[in-house]
């Protein structure tokens, strides 16, 4: 039965098609993932992949992968990336250009902001069902916290806590302001 199972397993999935995007914001960009649910052979490989497109100056909100390292290769344009470790220290804050690779270790928090030409990348994740956690936006950890926990934790008013939770819904953010400061490495 091998020819009916392994040999005939689907091993290809196109991630570039804009129409299959999992996250899409017409002003900011899109994000597509392929994991063992959409391509079952990845369960054997214990790997998954993602394709991201950020338009000019757009931001992908801060996030971390709970169960995977992420190896990012920029296919077009450039992006400022900030990567933060468990000590709250930026272990990377700089531009990543086309053709460059950045490794984001599991649990490290990362934020991306595209440059003037936008940014496209492909990411390989070391888990067949890599799980992303965002820090801002509709599905974020901050949004899941009670407002009073936020107010107490950050020493802000409940009104500020409410703004912090609900001001932004998106994962991909349009930024009209562009980048005012360049990263440092």
């Amino acid at each position, binding site marked *: 039965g091998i020819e009916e199972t392994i040999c005939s397993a689907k091993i290809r999935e196109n991630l570039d098609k804009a129409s299959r995007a999992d996250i899409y914001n017409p002003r900011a960009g899109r994000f597509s993932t392929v994991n063992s649910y959409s391509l079952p052979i990845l369960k054997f490989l214990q790997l998954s992949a993602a394709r991201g497109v950020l338009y000019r100056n757009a931001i992908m909100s801060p996030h971390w992968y*709970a*169960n995977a390292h992420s190896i990012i290769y920029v296919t077009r344009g450039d992006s400022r990336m900030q990567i933060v470790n468990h000590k709250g220290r930026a272990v990377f804050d700089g531009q990543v250009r086309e053709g460059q690779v950045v490794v984001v270790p*599991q649990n490290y928090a990362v934020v991306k902001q595209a440059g003037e030409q936008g940014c496209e990348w492909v990411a390989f994740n070391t888990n067949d069902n890599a799980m992303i956690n965002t820090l801002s936006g509709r599905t974020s950890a901050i949004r899941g916290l009670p407002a*009073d926990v936020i107010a107490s934790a950050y020493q802000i008013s409940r009104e*500020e806590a409410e703004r912090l939770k609900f001001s932004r819904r998106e994962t991909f*953010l349009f930024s009209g302001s562009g980048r005012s400061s360049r990263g440092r490495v």
Partner: protein
Amino acid sequence: WQKGECQIGNINAQEPSYSIRAEAGETQFWDFKNDEFQCAGVSILRHRIQQRGLLLPVYHNSPVLVYVLKGRGIFGLMISGCPETYESSQQSREQSQEDRSRSFRDRHQKIGESRQGDIVAIPAGAAHWAYNDGQEELVLLVLHDDSNNANQLDQNPRSFYLAGNPGRGQEQQPYREHGSRHGEQQQQFGNIFRGFDVETLAEVFGVDEETARKLQGHNDERGHLILVQRGLQVIRPPLRGEEYGRREEEGYYGGRDN
């Protein structure tokens, strides 16, 4: 040290080797570099949280099991993508304008209650918090399974705080000489927002830069366990006994209403 190589000739009963104090309690750590813990691939610590003390939101690089040694509290686990199913109710028609302006509507993810004897399981990378709403100290014994397959980093336990300034205002108290090394490392810690620039934070949260700066907690000297002076206000169901009691008063079981 290779996983599975547990060449231990002698096993000792272990006491905590150092502690970190914070505004609302302290956390005591066993030395994870110890041979036995390295062999088992785990690390262990104990939070002692005072009344109205809040363990700031944090996630770890490994799955965690918590046992409630003493006291009671509430906790929240933030799983990305899960809905905020605990919501304030709609304001009633009778509510005055003044009440309405005072009232605050919120919604957040599910909250759990824990008391002595409970085990709480927390997946790797899932942010969580805990609060002591009881009348006595809340003591939590916490096991990190650092060698679990879910952890793809090395076997060192790592805590990623989402708030506060875990390195500030903390006085490490080495019980043994080698414990102080870890305490000094803790002094350098900050929350993960500190690694991002203020302008980016303001942009992604849609707030002003002053609020964004507060996220970084630079001047916060309370540590990782903070005191909520007025008590924490969250949305949660009443305790079972209280719920039944109220329902009876309201006639749910009294046959007054259909």
